[in-house]
């Protein structure tokens, strides 16, 4: 595929790895905050090819994993209501709530539908005027413009049977929360490429300066990730702490102005509880007052939700990069993708699932080179 294959070239990958190896002189800890990048790193085995001095820590970049438990429970309650058509991205179907997931709701008779795009949910609402259609609007800033458009179109078309359960999360506050944590080890960040395609990267400059961390906007293909790491190592070795763009073909400094305008209209900043981490102020988006009518949290009264997390699940520590998935006692034994204890084991972008699915094989077992 054009724009994909070229950025998977093994020889160029080797070149970049050699450059990283030649540049690094001491141990550095860097974090990527993007589930898509986590997935790519582990699926391509990039972490296994990096020199041992470069430590990659996987951050809370999986919106599926960080959706607060009570939001999931709310979604389950709404999806169980008779007459509701509950639409969601595929990722969310297996995320465990307090006692079940959307798959179970489907098996019990709920009309739960996987959609590729939020506009599909809008069309389902148009085609089913006598049913309430609810879309589960999760994601980082990358997905927000799509979700915003669906709500905007519902409003302009006067649909009374469409609403959205919103749980958007923002990257910069997450980076700030990680940097300001007393146990933080992270010295640099790879910023999520497509988040920056939408939002630009001006917001990261104050963070880079305040915490003296390099922040490099990075793409997703193996060469993009290696290039992001290479630029990061160069900065760290030189003692610099700047925002740099290693994904220029898809990211401009100001992002996408049309998208940002829509986002400012449809969403309002709010405090958000990140599952496994806790409350991060100003780290989420909810529907603005102008669009309050389309907020499923208001349209549906759901009471009696008692949230209960697994007591042995350590996904919070994994999400903050404090432990690696295979350092959790339950990893691979009590907690597997088949019977996940927490969200990081469910979503294929969750670090635990990625480790389990792709990364179980290590050098000690005689890995070929």
């Amino acid at each position: 595929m054009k724009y994909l294959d070229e950025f998977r070239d093994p020889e160029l990958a080797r070149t970049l790895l050699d450059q990283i190896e030649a540049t690094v002189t001491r141990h550095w800890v860097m974090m990527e905050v993007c589930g898509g990048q986590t997935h790519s790193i582990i699926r391509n085995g990039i972490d296994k090819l990096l020199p041992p001095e470069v430590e990659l820590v996987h951050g809370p970049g999986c919106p599926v994993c960080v959706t607060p438990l009570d939001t999931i429970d709310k979604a389950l309650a709404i999806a169980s209501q008779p007459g509701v058509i509950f639409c969601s991205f595929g990722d969310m179907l297996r995320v465990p709530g307090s006692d079940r997931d959307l798959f179970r709701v489907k098996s019990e008779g709920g009309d739960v539908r996987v959609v590729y795009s939020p506009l599909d949910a809008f069309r389902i609402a148009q085609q089913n005027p006598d049913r309430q259609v609810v879309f589960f609007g999760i994601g980082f800033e990358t997905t927000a413009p799509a979700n915003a458009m669906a709500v905007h179109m519902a409003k302009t078309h006067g649909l009374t049977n469409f609403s959205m359960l919103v749980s958007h999360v923002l990257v910069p506050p997450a980076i700030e929360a990680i940097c300001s944590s007393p146990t933080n080890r992270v010295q640099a960040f790879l910023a999520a490429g497509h988040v920056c395609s939408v939002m630009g990267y001006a917001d990261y400059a104050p963070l880079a300066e305040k915490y003296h961390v390099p922040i490099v906007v990075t793409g997703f293909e193996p060469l993009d990730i290696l290039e992001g790491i290479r630029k990061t190592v160069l900065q760290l070795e030189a003692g610099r702490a700047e925002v740099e763009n290693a994904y220029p073909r898809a990211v401009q400094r100001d992002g996408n102005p049309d998208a940002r305008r829509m986002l400012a209209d449809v969403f309002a900043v709010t405090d958000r509880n990140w599952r496994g981490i806790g409350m991060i102020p100003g780290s989420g988006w909810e529907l603005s007052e102008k669009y309050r009518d389309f907020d499923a949290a208001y349209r549906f009264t759901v009471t009696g939700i008692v949230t209960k997390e697994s007591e042995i699940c350590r996904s919070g520590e994994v999400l903050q990069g404090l432990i690696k998935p295979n350092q959790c006692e339950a990893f691979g034994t009590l907690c597997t993708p088949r019977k996940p204890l927490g969200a990081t084991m469910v979503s294929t972008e969750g670090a635990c699932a990625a480790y389990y699915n792709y990364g179980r094989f290590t050098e000690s077992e005689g890995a070929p080179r």
Partner: protein
Amino acid sequence: MTIDLSGWSCPLPLRDEPNIMLGHGGGGKMSAELVEHLFLPAFDNAALRSLGDGAVVAGASRLSISTDSFVVHPRFFPGGDIGELAVNGTVNDVAMCGAVPRYIAVAFILEEGLPMQELGVIVDSMARAAKAAGVALVTGDTKVVDRGHGDGIFITTTGVGVLADDVEIGPDRARPGDAVLVSGTIGDHGMAIMSVREGLDFESTIKSDTAPLNHMIATLLEAGVEVHTLRDPTRGGLAATLTEIAVASGVGVLIDERSVPIDRVVQSACEMLGMDPFHVANEGKLVAFVAAEDAERALAVMRGFEIGTRAAIIGEVVAGHPGMVVAKTAIGSTRVIDTQIGEQLPRIC
């Protein structure tokens, strides 16, 4: 996609009823009409014609038996339909131990209201698939369930094949040093279904690869290839198949990702939906574990078939990491290939 049912013309007296009715499953006159005017003409063979409760057929000292149910939705998809799938699927399962498939028994569960024309086209597909595979549908059963209780049509096929005395092929027979081959591109069937699945549909040229593999297997054996294991990677895809064999044989499997053949458009579809081609179903491909020295000969045999032109050697069996399938990635690292949990879902991350 538009389904062309026009090629089938409905014989009297079935023409009087455009849809399947409960009576067609009642065992009375209507059932008999369905057999006489639909199933018999389509599947026509001596054993079936005698219309006994069971078919009497010639046997052998060793038999291979397999059964499978087919509930695919939508029932007509690019490249095939549920009927063709039901015949090829069972032919292949029977053939994977090296047996020659001979007979098929078929059970239909039809939903009241299923258009007769659709049933006719499906039965025709089955007849053609059986002929291409060289098997006979010798006995069957039909039940009809109330409207709303059956999703149109469910088909169960049970196949019987004869196994020569000197053939020993099974999932537990793979050995370190064996070459691993696949007979063609992976992911075609699953993505063909995805392309017409509601909510995810997209325009593409992807077609299901449903096909009988018994002729290819027979030729492999005739050519003297030392075959240890055969399996068709259906649900769960190549990943599930390789893992099952690795576990059953207590060996490790090492794959070179770049050598696994994938159709360009299937690859794009997987990229777009965030799916791994290794987890996507195939219905006309086989995986073969053969003695290392026979690898090239096996490859040549496969490539001699129209359904095998993209056959490739994709890896080898190793003694290390037993039960685990490891792939060398395109950029030279390694990753584990594992079975997925349940349904494969498209992702946004």
